């Protein structure tokens, strides 16, 4: 390098981007990281790759360490144990600091869609999602169950899950933080719209393949489904509260019935009225208490900000950055200049 020179930055106004990639059994391809890094460098001022090593085996950990030694702008967060794939994405959203956060797998056929998606950001969208026209291949039973579940989810939360699933998800920083801090974050990253106030656009690209299906096993799928439904909606607790209230009302009615029988029927067994009134009275009190407690629990639940529990046991960073000698000087077109190497500066 002989002195300051211009470096390309077509999207000077686009700010910085963090690309979140979840790594499990296979480390990301170095060539793909390089080509995506170059493509993103032309579209954003700064790029970082946030790799969430989700309870990876030793071989993958070593490969990731080698990647940070060879490639720029990579941060690897090693999670102590394997967590759900979607939750691992949320760890990435939680740790990424770019103005934009991109969730995707690094496939070269997605780069064209990426450029198009970024071009749409100029219209003011805070969420831009690219989907293809093909659903993932699951067994017919799983597909039917999934469809039913998503319908139930939409009924209870009012939020629709994207089908086919997203191939590229680009969130503005405020959106990424909202998702990371939401108790239903795992489902929000599957949805086309996130929340009021975040303009979103879903762009469809024929032939754009979704990520391959991830089979959690029947037990895992059911557990995740129940967990998501319970954490996304207060409906189950509200239902329990209503059932308790209904039980209380029925107990009260039954008490009146018992009194009526005692007053109108001549052959009532001795002790029946006392016992029945005692039982129905207790039921009424317990139901009322349960309904009140359920409402208080609901209030407490809504007042607590959700915190996901995960442990990052180790963190690695690339030894070099893509633009280490970039001066903080731009020309009229927003192109940054490179400076002299450190050892040559006075």
């Amino acid at each position, binding site marked *: 390098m002989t002195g*300051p020179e211009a470096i390309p930055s077509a999207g000077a106004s686009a*700010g910085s981007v963090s690309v979140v990639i979840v790594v499990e059994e296979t480390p990301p391809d170095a060539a793909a990281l390089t080509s995506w890094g170059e493509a993103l460098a032309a579209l954003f001022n700064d790029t970082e790759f946030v790799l969430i090593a989700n309870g990876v085996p030793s071989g993958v950990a070593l490969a990731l360490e080698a990647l940070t030694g060879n490639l720029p702008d990579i941060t690897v967060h090693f999670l102590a144990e394997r967590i759900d794939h979607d939750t691992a994405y949320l760890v990435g959203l939680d740790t990424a*600091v*770019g*103005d934009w956060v991109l969730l995707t797998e690094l496939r070269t056929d997605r780069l064209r869609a990426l450029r198009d998606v970024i071009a749409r950001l100029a219209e003011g969208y805070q969420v831009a999602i690219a989907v293809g026209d093909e659903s993932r291949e699951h067994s017919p039973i799983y597909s039917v169950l999934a469809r039913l579940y998503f319908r139930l989810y939409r009924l209870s939360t009012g939020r629709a899950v994207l089908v086919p699933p997203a191939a590229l998800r680009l969130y503005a920083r405020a959106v990424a933080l909202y998702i990371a801090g939401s108790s239903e974050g795992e489902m929000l990253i599957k949805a086309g719209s996130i929340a009021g106030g975040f303009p979103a656009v879903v762009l469809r690209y024929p032939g754009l393949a979704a990520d391959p299906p991830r089979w959690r096993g029947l037990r895992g799928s059911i557990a995740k489904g129940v967990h998501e439904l319970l954490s996304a909606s207060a409906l189950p607790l509200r239902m329990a509260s209503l059932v308790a209230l209904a039980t209380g009302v029925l107990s009260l009615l039954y008490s009146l019935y018992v009194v009526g029988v005692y007053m109108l029927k001549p052959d009532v067994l001795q002790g029946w009225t006392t016992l029945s009134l005692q039982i129905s009275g207790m039921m009424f009190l317990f139901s009322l208490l349960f309904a009140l407690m359920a409402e208080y629990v609901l209030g407490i639940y809504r007042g607590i900000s959700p915190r996901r529990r995960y442990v990052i046991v180790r963190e690695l960073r690339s030894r070099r950055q893509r633009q280490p000698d970039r001066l*903080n000087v*731009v*020309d009229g077109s927003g192109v940054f*200049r490179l400076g002299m190497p450190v050892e040559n500066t006075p």
Partner: protein
Amino acid sequence: MSRPHPPDVDAVVIGAGFFGCHIALELRRLGMERVILADREAGILRRASYVNQARVHNGYHYPRSLGTASRSRRNFPRFCAEHSFAITGGFESIYAIARHSLVGASQFAAFCASIDAPCRESPAHLRRLFDSDLVDTAFIVNEVAFDAAALADDLLARLSAAGVELRLSTAGRIEAADPAGADLSLNGSPLRAGWAFNCTYAALDDVGVRLACPLKKELAEIALILPSPVFAGIGVTIMDGPFFSTMPFPARKCHSLSHVRYTPHAAWIDPNEAATSTHSRVTKMLRDGARYMPPLTRARPLGSLYDVKAVLLSTERDDARPILFESSAVSRRVISVLGAKIDNIYDLLDVLAHHDWS
């Protein structure tokens, strides 16, 4: 067609702010014989170089713009060493991360580690300054403030020693330009210069140069306060979304207070627009600030400084605050410079040192 007459001077720099003064000095160092530095004010460093938070950046301010952060971090030690006479250290600089901030506490700590900037969680007695419902974590960082008056005194002496002709109370304008130089007027008197530098900051698009890079201007208020004794020796910055800052302001021996919502009074893009008169918002700044730092209620307002701030429209949405170095489309010998942070001056000097002056 008549040929333009040879230049009267090698270069004219319009605008004697921190960047304008350093450019004039650098041009002399590069061998230009006659360099004129003109400013419409009666002294140097009277406007944006003075009316700001007086913060010497060490990168902490830019967790979402690693480029700007790493340059600030790299320039910080050099700036402090070369301007030690104007540096006010010896105070605890605290960056407090608000809940629902655009950058979380763990993210801020990770970011500091990534640019190798020292940062540690604040001790309990400082933590008590903040409302724990609104502030997540507070970090003690290594940041200092500068005394603009001391910088001005130093630069005045250096300009004189370097032989830069300083013309104060002189309004400069670039009337025309051609490949060989620029025709200017200084207080109406014509002058031809081999090179013309437009360093007028908020007047960058108002001295006869058409900019390719549009500017957004804001009428900004920096309040000056006498904080309660608990803030003695403390500078606080609350990040990021809700954002305000109270820092020592050495030039007036008090604290400055700026607030993301109340510091900008008006904003405009059209160069022909101008700020309208306005009332101080220091009460609002103090009231909102006191939500996060209750002891701020006991601060006493001393007055406010107002000036027009300029930012590049292209970087308004992100955190980056680069220096603009733009050659005019009419002549490459007319260069507009919009400085951002004074500690980034070395990046500009690097560009000047390797510029094609032929």
